[in-house]
């Protein structure tokens, strides 16, 4: 293990464990008002009239007419209204906000408001959508030829559902005007995203807006774009009231009306000739919900990963993110990749069965290695450690032997084991880092020789405060206690880009390492010194072209192999997870405890996605699973034997050899779990979540 991988006490340990850390709802400001949103009760309608009750003194209503800038939230495409215009596009769309000094009175007013809707027929099923938000296609080789020459074409469709981030702290922000400026603070991942959105909505210059991240109780992608929307609403309210306004979502509101993982349908046509896979023709459909938010980029990542870790010479990949009158989907750990990785791993498994092989045999035959070409005709520039990972998994689980053994089972309890192999492309898709983000980071040495890190990336639980400080302290050769970092405040930190895409440590951590190297050379005791570093694309990268999806979509990849073992009670369909093993390569771990914690947490989230996290809407478009009693996430007893091991595979261009980590562990859990269920049930399966209800259907089919 490298020195830097040794674990130390986290910078934020103390305040969080003793309860003194202040999250947004813990802040109370003088004269502060409370806001609650009125959400649309219809999936698609024109608003013909809003009847307001008489308001007590000090209470006010905020709506589209109070938006002093543009009534659209700046995300990628500016289509999300700050407050609904005259129409609503999904159940939950914010129409107005009631604001006042007493939360309970605000609530009462909210219930007295009558909205008169002229209902229209909503589009709820993504297959019947008439609006395509994004449509991408790319090819490699000659797919038509591969299909024409095939002796056999496998066709199958795979389905994945919503996943709710279920961060424990719900969405919440406070906005307050001060000296002609607007400050917004609270729970978020990306302060500079919020910054431009607020300036655009209240119609002022960037210099008149300040965004401060408060201690944030988890994000997982759910606090990437959504806080920009809420911030615009709260800032407009604070401007109108000319007082601080706080909005904290309750759990049901958060589950029903904030973004979640895109449900998907992926159809794979796989050409086989002489027992060889000669091509994959892949069509992917994502349900975006009512507005575009981040769907363009989520879809891009999903498509780039569509052929998994396999060398497929002829490839045609197309996909659409379509509009429906349901809650807008957005970022979630893995960002489009869990959907397509599920599909490709399952189709490989099903093809293997047809060929009389175990899926691992087939997968091993096609998996890529260093120097191979990627789906987008880029290159895997670095070592691909899949063979060592498979070997390690087999040592840990006895996968190969068990897999065979479980094929012939009788009796009430039946076991199964499944395996997945996958990657996560580190950082922004394509040339986003170079062309759009252009990250800047700073470090400042104070006269007392302490060093402050100035970056816009937020510690949302992934340990960034600690790992950033370790990199800087270690590079400077000074004590870790001498280096500190506060939560980002856009008045104080440069724009080092958002906390997303497994980029913070690899990309911004790299800038900090460079800055620290420079400071070390120029160090002057007792003087204040500031060093600034700007992003430079590594020179080995083959430039990415988004038009035809060609080049390196990512500079490098994190790799992993997962295995999951289950036991199914064939009488009740209840399933126990006997073990879950993950081998992860995230380059050099900057602090082993932190990385293992990330892997374990992400892996368990993935197992939840695979097995129990069921969310759907009814025929009116209302999300039915809107509480922790309806939407079940794993507890401490669900996967008692969960093992995460790290494989040290340094990335030459990352700080201390580190690369992207946060998203990887979620990506491969679903195919490993569902393959295990197949092994136990002796059937081909094609959906996640795969719940006990689904298992019961299969069992009843088998038994009758």
């Amino acid at each position: 293990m490298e020195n830097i991988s040794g674990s130390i006490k986290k910078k934020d340990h103390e305040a969080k464990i003793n309860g003194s850390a202040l999250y947004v709802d813990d802040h109370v400001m003088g004269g502060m008002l409370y806001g609650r949103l009125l959400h649309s009760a219809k999936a698609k309608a024109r608003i013909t009239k809003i009847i307001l009750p008489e308001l007590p003194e000090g209470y006010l209503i905020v709506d589209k007419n109070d938006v002093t800038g543009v009534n659209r939230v700046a995300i990628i495409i500016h289509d999300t209204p700050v407050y609904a215009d005259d129409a609503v596009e999904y159940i939950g769309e914010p129409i107005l906000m009631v604001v006042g000094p007493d939360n309970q009175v605000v609530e009462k007013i909210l219930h007295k408001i009558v909205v008169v809707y002229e209902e229209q027929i909503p589009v709820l099923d993504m297959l019947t959508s008439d609006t395509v938000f994004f449509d991408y296609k790319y090819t490699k080789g000659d797919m038509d030829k591969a299909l024409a020459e095939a002796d056999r074409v496998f066709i199958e469709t795979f389905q994945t559902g919503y996943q709710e981030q279920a961060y424990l702290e719900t969405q919440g922000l406070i906005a307050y005007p001060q000296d002609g400026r607007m400050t917004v603070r609270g729970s978020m991942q990306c302060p500079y995203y919020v910054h431009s959105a607020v300036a655009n909505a209240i119609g002022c210059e960037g210099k008149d807006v300040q965004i401060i991240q408060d201690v944030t109780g988890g994000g997982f992608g759910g606090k990437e774009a959504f806080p920009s929307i809420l911030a615009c609403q709260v800032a407009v309210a604070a401007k109108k009231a000319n007082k601080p306004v706080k909005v904290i979502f309750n759990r049901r509101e958060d589950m029903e009306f904030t973004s979640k993982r895109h449900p998907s349908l992926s159809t794979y046509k796989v050409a086989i000739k002489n027992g060889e896979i000669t091509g994959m023709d892949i069509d992917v459909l994502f349900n975006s919900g009512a507005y575009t938010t981040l769907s363009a980029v989520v879809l891009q990542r999903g498509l780039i990963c569509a052929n998994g870790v396999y060398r497929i010479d002829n490839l045609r990949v197309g996909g659409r993110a379509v509009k429906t009158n349901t809650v807008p989907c957005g970022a979630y750990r893995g960002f489009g990749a869990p959907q397509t990785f599920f599909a490709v791993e399952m189709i490989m498994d099903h093809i293997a069965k047809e060929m009389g092989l175990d899926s691992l045999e087939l997968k091993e035959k096609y998996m890529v290695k260093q120097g191979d070409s990627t789906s987008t005709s880029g290159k895997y520039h670095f070592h691909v450690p899949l063979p060592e990972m498979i070997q390690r998994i087999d040592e840990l689980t006895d996968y190969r032997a068990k897999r065979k053994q479980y094929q012939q089972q009788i009796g009430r309890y039946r076991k199964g084991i499944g395996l997945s192999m996958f990657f996560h492309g580190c950082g922004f898709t394509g040339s986003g880092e170079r062309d759009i983000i252009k990250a800047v980071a700073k470090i400042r040495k104070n006269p007392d020789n302490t060093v402050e890190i100035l970056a816009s990336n937020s510690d949302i639980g992934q340990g960034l405060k600690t790992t950033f400080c370790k990199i800087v302290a270690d590079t400077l050769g000074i004590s870790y206690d001498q280096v500190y970092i506060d939560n980002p405040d856009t008045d104080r930190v440069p724009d080092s880009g958002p906390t997303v895409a497994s980029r913070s440590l690899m990309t911004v951590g790299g800038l900090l390492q460079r800055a620290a190297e420079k400071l070390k050379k120029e160090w002057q005791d007792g003087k204040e010194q500031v060093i600034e570093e700007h992003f430079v694309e590594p020179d080995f990268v083959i430039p990415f072209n988004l038009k035809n999806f060609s080049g390196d979509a990512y500079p490098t990849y994190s790799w992993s192999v997962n295995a999951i073992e289950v036991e199914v009670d064939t009488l009740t369909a209840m399933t126990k997870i006997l073990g879950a093993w993950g081998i992860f390569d995230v380059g050099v771990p900057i602090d082993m405890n932190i990385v293992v914690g990330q892997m374990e947490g992400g892996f368990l989230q993935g197992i939840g996605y695979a097995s129990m996290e069921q969310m759907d809407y009814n025929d009116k478009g209302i999300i039915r699973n809107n509480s922790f009693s309806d939407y079940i996430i794993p507890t401490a007893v669900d996967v008692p034997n969960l093992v995460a091991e790290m494989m040290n595979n340094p990335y030459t261009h990352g700080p201390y050899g580190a690369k992207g980590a946060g998203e990887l562990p979620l990506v491969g859990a679903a195919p490993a779990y569902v393959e295990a269920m197949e092994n136990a049930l002796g059937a081909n399966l094609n959906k996640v979540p795969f719940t006990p209800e689904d298992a019961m259907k299969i069992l009843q089919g088998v038994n009758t």
Partner: protein
Amino acid sequence: MMINFILNDQKVASTAKANERLLDILRTEFACTGVKCGCKEGECGACSVILDGRLVNSCMVAMGHVEGCTVMTIEGYRKTERFAALDTSYASVSAVQCGFCMPGMVLASECILAKNPNPTEAEIREGISGNLCRCTGYNAIVQAISIAAKEGEGLW
């Protein structure tokens, strides 16, 4: 009518109505912001407090029930020697991630160990199964509790 109870070893009196939630009163009237609200429906455990020696979800407790009771929140518990042992063990495995579940987890840890100073892994898992954590995958928390059980010999 005042509601009298003992909060973190001090006698206090609240003007709250009998049907208000203990969670809200602790946070607003007594500034115990270490008690977190994750769901207000008794499902997540972020609002855990120790009431007369038992771990309860304070969002599910009406103030009327609290008359004459003893309530311990993280604000009181953090002054104890037992907390210090848990603090050290949680730190040694870096169990804290976003931290939102942590005050509740720490109080759950205390209740597990107070009942059984040498719990098995399964007992620990059972003991924290009413407290959701979306970040950690629970392994580090389970480990932290068993380290505290070993290292804090005699404390529980």
